[in-house]
């Protein structure tokens, strides 16, 4: 087991793009944690005299329409984005894996009902479903989390179910049953750990798309509300000044792309390192 793990690790570290992605994400996480210490200015401090200044030594990313430092808002925006996306992925993966294992392990009517429900929910393009939920609940950060989470667990459930289906036929599960282990214990002790590799890959790739969804909803004015610094809503605010102050749109967009790209690279690397054939969805 340890040997396999270290071999996977070597395989992952050989992939230069994945390592670069990992470094970028670690830097972004550090920035998010240390935002209070490294952000040069207060994010909410309005200084109308300083408004719409182009990038300079004082303000490396310029200032916005209210004279707030864009770099500081970007750093705090990293915190908002990472907090939201990690929360969403934690919620959806836990719930999705739970449902997936139950469906795959017990099969029968439960499996049939759960999988048909997932089919129905997947009949919508995911952003549309998220929009409907926000339409019902109203705009806001909490509602964004709810909307994206309600859509996001579906993929985890599918992958976890597919993996469980193959695991439950394995001999060690039969062995555990013969020893009198309860179903709950078998799921927790044997099925769950064996489900994890593809789920971890999915989580990494999913983090990228969750960041995109959060930014898209923020951009549409339905996610994080001003004055909360968030990349998507910063882009939305900067849109009006596209002609004269392009930096207001360039930097937040660049950050979103960088983060998504980094997670995609890490995910691809992990998938190749673990086992490409275990992944059932793209």
């Amino acid at each position: 087991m340890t040997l396999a793990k270290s071999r996977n690790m070597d395989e992952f570290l050989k992939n230069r793009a994945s390592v670069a992605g990992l470094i970028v994400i670690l830097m972004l996480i550090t920035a998010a944690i240390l935002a209070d210490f490294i952000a040069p200015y207060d994010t909410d401090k309005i200084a109308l005299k300083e408004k719409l200044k182009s990038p300079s030594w004082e303000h490396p990313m310029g200032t916005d329409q209210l004279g707030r430092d864009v770099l500081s808002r970007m750093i705090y925006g990293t915190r908002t984005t990472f907090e939201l996306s990690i929360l969403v992925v934690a919620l959806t993966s836990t719930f999705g894996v739970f449902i997936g294992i139950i469906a795959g392990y017990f099969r029968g009517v439960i499996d049939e009902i759960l999988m048909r429900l997932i089919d129905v929910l997947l009949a919508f393009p995911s952003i549309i479903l998220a929009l409907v939920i926000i339409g019902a609940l109203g705009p806001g950060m909490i509602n964004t989390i709810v909307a994206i989470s309600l859509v996001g667990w579906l993929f985890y459930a599918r992958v976890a179910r597919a993996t469980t289906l193959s695991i439950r036929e394995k001999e060690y599960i039969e062995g555990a049953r013969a020893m009198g282990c309860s179903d709950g214990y078998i799921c927790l002790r044997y099925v769950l750990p064996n489900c994890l590799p593809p789920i971890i890959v999915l989580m990494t790739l999913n983090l990228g798309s969750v960041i995109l969804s959060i930014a898209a909803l923020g951009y549409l004015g339905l996610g994080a509300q001003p004055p909360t610094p968030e990349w998507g809503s910063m882009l939305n605010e900067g849109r009006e000044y596209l002609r004269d102050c392009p930096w207001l749109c360039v930097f937040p967009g660049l950050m979103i792309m960088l983060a998504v790209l980094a997670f995609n690279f890490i995910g691809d690397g992990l998938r190749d390192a673990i086992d490409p054939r275990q992944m059932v969805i793209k």
Partner: protein
Amino acid sequence: MLNNILKRLGIFCLVLTVSTSLVFFMLHSLPGENAEVMAKYIFLGNVELNPSNEEVQLVKEKFDLDRSLLSQYYSWATNAFHGDLGRSYKTNAHVLEEILIRLPATITLALIAVLMSLLIGMPLGILAAVKQNSTTDYLCSATAVLGISMPNFWLALLLIMVFSLALKLTPTIGYGGPSHLILPVVTLGTATTAVVMRLTRSSTLEVMRQDYIRTARGKGLDHRDIMITHSLKNALIPIITMVGLEFGHLLGGAVIIETIFAWPGIGRLLIDSISARDIPVIQGTVLFITLMYMLLNFTIDILYPIFDPRIGGS
């Protein structure tokens, strides 16, 4: 064949019923709030003002909002089946008319974007596969990853910045002649092009490893003939499936793109109605988007045996 179609039609109707009811229940789960929004529009003409309790009560009675959700859904579904999707809270216009006026704009946008992604993505994917592990291959793959990771709303702003504001080659926003189509189509189609390219590459590589390709080579067939008649035909199958699924992403993406480019399609109608909490319009547009998405995938399912006779036989 007929059995297969009937079975799929059954599933289609079932999924449509369940999904519309799901959306209906979600949107109507807060009945008090709905009545309040309606009262705001009817009595005050403004969402910023608060209606009195009597006004809210009046609206509830007039529109039967006190009835059970199930019976409300039943009346909505019966009316929808007869082509009546209700009236907008905000403008009092017929929802179906509002949607039908905007539908061509969205369909044009999505279809041209799909066409663009196939015309650019497939040749590049084949090129990357034929020249596997070459600089061309790496360049194609890198561009594809970039295309997938780039937020479409940011790409839209960058394109406006460069092509409209700086170079003045295209109109910034709006709807009109073919020149208005360029930026929205490029924005919407970029991610799909990247996906098509990656899939064409992997699917061509997979097919090229098959025995029948080796046989064709052994027979001394021309390389070009092998690529076109043997490889491409078989590599097409996963691409067709993917285009159906990707169409859903396109419709979702259209929601954002239409808002940015002030494109008068149903995506923008959806966003506007969500901001205004105009429930009948939200419900109607979602119904149409789901219907389009499902119809396309249904058609692809039916047409599948034509592309892959092995599936029809089973």
